[in-house]
């Protein structure tokens, strides 16, 4: 099952995406949150079936000083399930991203494989990133890892591109494009083409 949401399709102030996996199946969800007004989104996936596999990709692009808050829950109840959540955000002006990622592994969910990654690109003056990746693990036979990075476009990257005749603005656009495309894949790129700075 593959599902994709873009903010244009979401008309609620507090969009909530809730999935419960009760069968041994694969789920791929892509969430693109781009807005000039502030809102808070919630995403949760509950792994209730052994052998379930969920891949979640979120792109967060606030604009014009908006604050986008995203809370994700990866809840492992059944054993042998796999969940992978990747959240990438790009802040180009004085906007804010608040990310709270939760991974809960229940006492019976042995052999769970939960992964959570949050990558943030910050290059707007006054931009703020608030991120809190939380793990709660009650079983010792699991693989559970999370990672967070925040950073800007390195000067040497811009310099490299400048020496090859790429202007700064194009270089930045190229970098953001690569940053996001790496997580979503070519075929879905056109979905958010007009949302990029």
């Amino acid at each position, binding site marked *: 099952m593959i599902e994709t949401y873009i903010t244009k399709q979401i008309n609620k102030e507090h969009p909530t995406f809730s999935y419960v996996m009760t069968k041994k199946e694969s789920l791929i969800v892509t969430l693109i949150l781009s807005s000039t007004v502030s809102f808070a989104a919630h995403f949760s996936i509950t792994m209730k079936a052994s052998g379930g596999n969920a891949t979640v990709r979120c792109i967060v692009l606030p604009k014009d000083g908006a604050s986008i808050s995203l809370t994700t829950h990866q809840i492992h109840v059944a054993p042998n399930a796999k969940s992978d959540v990747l959240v990438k955000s790009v802040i180009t002006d004085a906007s804010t991203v608040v990310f709270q990622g939760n991974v809960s592994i229940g*006492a019976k969910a*042995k052999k769970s494989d939960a992964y959570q990654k949050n990558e*943030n690109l*910050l*290059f*707007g*003056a*006054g*931009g*703020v*990133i*608030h*991120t*809190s*990746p*939380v*793990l*709660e*693990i*009650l*079983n*010792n*036979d*699991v*693989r*559970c*890892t*999370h*990672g*967070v*990075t*925040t*950073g*800007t476009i390195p000067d040497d990257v811009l310099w490299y591109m400048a020496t090859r005749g790429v202007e700064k603005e194009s270089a930045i656009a190229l970098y953001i494009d690569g940053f996001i495309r790496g997580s979503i894949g070519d075929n879905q790129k056109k979905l958010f083409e007009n949302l990029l700075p």
Partner: protein
Amino acid sequence: MASNTQSFVKAPYVFGFHKPEDYIYKSGRGLSESVIRDMSAQKGESKWMLDFRLKSLAIYEKKMMPSWGPNLVDIQFENLFYFIRPVKSQADAWKDLPDAIRETYDKIGIPEMEKKFLSGVSAQYESEVVYKSIEKTLHEKGVIFTDMDTAVKKYPELVKKYFGTLIPPADNKFAALNSAVWSGGSFIYVPKNVSVGLPLQAYFRINAANMGQFERTLIIADEGSYVHYIEGCTAPIYSTDSLHSAVVEIFVEKGARVRYSTVQNWSTNVYNLVTKRARVEEEGIMEWVDGNIGSKITMKYPSCYLVGKKAHGEVLSVAYAGKGQIQDTGGKMIHLAPETTSRIISKSVSGGGGRTSYRGLVYIASNAKGARNNVVCDALILDHLSRSDTYPKMDVRVTQSITEHEASVSRISDEQLFYLTSRGITPAAAASMIVNGFIEPIVKALPLEYAVELNRLMDLEMLGSVG
């Protein structure tokens, strides 16, 4: 494999002895203004300190208990003794100490260690430092290393300038409590460009049932100086719960470097709720090395306020939580100046139903251009009864900065165990070896005898955990 790790047998607590109580003065249970007035008068303190204590008491009474973290409702504040005075005055020589106290120190091996290499010992028995010996060289260099009570009397101006400025009483409930009833602790002042070669040490010990220990430590490292301070704790077992709530303030001036090492091994009925903070000026370096093995609940988040350009902060921590224990530890890095750097490495091991948590904050202010931060948390869960949590927070407000956080949770893998057992090592020894390897990066930052002690304690805790 899972069944192998289930039979977790807790080794008996090796430092669990206590001597009959022998005190000159003991306050009644519970806390009130009269207890504080009485205590301050007993210590012969000047008015400003009494006022500070009373102000703190008022704040303490207003403050709420933390709404997050481990459950603290079982602490019976009204049943604690807030001030106990073991001997009349401080002894100047080892032989002047009462026999009971000397025996206690013999058991934790102080005189021997002192003979070997200590530059100075300031050992704390109950709330008061009763024995201290400071080598002449420290005096010659102008280094002040004394207990906090003496410092308040002898160096009031110096103390007044720094005391309670980094951790004000209103910071949190336990800082307020400590500010009201503090007793003992160390005071260190290192003058400009002085490097103290040998680590300064102090031993703390709680010996009375229901005795709260509220030591207060203040370290000032003036420009370009270096000092390494070691705090080691052992405590005997009691059936009633006791509370240890210390406050440690460290000022790292321009270009100075301070390393603060702790091996905390309170018995498993002690609540260890500690506030530790350092203020780091330009190009200063602050390093916290923290080992938490004992206590019932530990809540400790050493922090660095990086206020000067190119200041650097570091937290290396290792925690072990066994049966009934909660180790809620972590670190805070507050980047308030450009090009500041920090690193937090946290390793935790939980077994026998214990719970370890990493709780941390990284804040990069909007003027901290070029700040860099790296956080790595590794957790090892030994059996299915135990748990491990990670609660990091990152707040980034500047574009030219890099922060990284990484955490992983694992168990002792079957492959590793198989590899070692196939070479004739017993499963228990193999598990011990793997755990000691896991915590090695932190342990090697400690002085040798502490590293040995930590490894030995870990081995004891691990005894019978596998096989």
